[in-house]
């Protein structure tokens, strides 16, 4: 287990290093998120729809769509020069390959979220009050699961010619439960409701995360040809 974790972190570190050299995917995702926020601001009639009502939905649509942009990158990187073969040649446990990509994707998504959240607060004039810790929690719980599914689907999508279309087509249905839950909790937190009250939804999000992370980790090695 420690072995697997060690290899996974080495893999994720490598991905991070590669991305920091070129920075293209990260910058694009952040720019996308910012632009989506801007468009949402203009895509409503401010006199009839208050930003407060729309805010949680906007936040989560932005989070999830921007996140989807980063997933294909993780495997497109391995497709160039056949680097994936290099990983598979080595004695690295296959679970570590999944976990490494998962950690890398998680890292990118969290980075994008870390930039998006302050922008969101700014653009939508959202009074956070004491809601920040709760918001951070729901953001984490809402993210862990779908990033796992996104990682698995990205590994498949890059093998097709329409990777950027294939990934959302496959992944969007899997966003429904986390987005429903996350928006419910976010709405209430922003309205000042206590975090403890959201335990039910948070539990569902947590179970979703555990189930999908486990299933994805178990199923990933079968995707490989060996």
């Amino acid at each position, binding site marked *: 287990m420690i072995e697997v974790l060690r290899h996974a972190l080495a893999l994720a570190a*490598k991905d991070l290093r590669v991305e920091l050299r070129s920075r293209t995917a990260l910058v694009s995702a952040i720019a996308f998120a910012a632009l989506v926020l801007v468009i949402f601001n203009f895509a409503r009639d401010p006199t009839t729809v208050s930003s407060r009502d729309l805010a949680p939905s906007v936040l989560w649509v932005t989070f999830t769509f921007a996140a989807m942009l980063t997933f294909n990158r993780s495997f497109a990187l391995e497709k160039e020069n056949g680097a994936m073969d290099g990983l598979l040649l080595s*004695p690295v446990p296959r679970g570590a390959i999944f976990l490494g990509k998962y950690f890398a994707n998680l890292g990118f998504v969290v980075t994008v979220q870390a930039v998006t959240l302050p922008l969101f607060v700014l653009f939508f004039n959202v009074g956070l009050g004491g809601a920040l810790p709760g918001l951070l929690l729901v953001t984490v719980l809402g993210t862990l699961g779908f990033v796992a599914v996104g990682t698995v689907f990205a590994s498949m999508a890059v093998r097709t010619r329409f990777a950027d279309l294939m990934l959302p087509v496959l992944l969007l249905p899997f966003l429904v439960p986390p987005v429903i839950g996350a928006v419910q909790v976010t709405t209430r937190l922003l309205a000042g409701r206590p975090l403890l009250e959201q335990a039910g939804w948070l539990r569902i999000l947590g179970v979703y995360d555990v189930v999908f992370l486990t299933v994805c980790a178990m199923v990933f090695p079968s995707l490989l040809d060996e």
Partner: protein
Amino acid sequence: MALSAGTGSLQVILGPNGAGKTTLLRILAGLTRPTSGQVLVLGHSLRNTPRLRREIGLLSHQSLLYDDLTPRENLTFIARLYGLKAPDQSAMAALDAVGLAQRSADPVRRLSRGMVQRVAIARALLHRPRILLLDEPFTGLDPRAADRLVRLLEEQLAAGTAVVVVAHSLYDIWPVATRISVLVRGQWVIDEPRPTDRDRFMVRVQEAFSD
């Protein structure tokens, strides 16, 4: 079909395109699952013994490298994957062995094709595998590089490495070949130790190709 490679011997696999040479090599490397049969490395099934992967090195026609990283970073990463004790040192030593120590800090993207191939060779040999697999390694090499590769193969053979080379021409590999087999449409049509008369053998191979 059966294939075996012994220590210090170099097995050449020839064949026209589509014969299955690359697939065979990938199966030997443990990258592709065969429809039936198994790969035994040092007597053990490769599938069931992941640590045996340490004994295999592959030189593919793709470099298997990350273009945005430097050769040093690439090899250090690989060294970690293979569990080598001093990853950075092993990486630099391998680069030194192929004469690229001074370019170790340039992203692979900026290296010439020949240099990339040398880094790829360093990568394949980094973990001192006992089995070396090469997929059409002489393609696109200038005579000096081809010569360097042949000398490297000689060194490896002298050290007891078992080598399997997929090629579509015998010209470059002839001096070091121990055994030559020709694969046509998934079947061996020639399978024998390297004969003394190269030209006559080449004619036989040509005929085998055109069947």
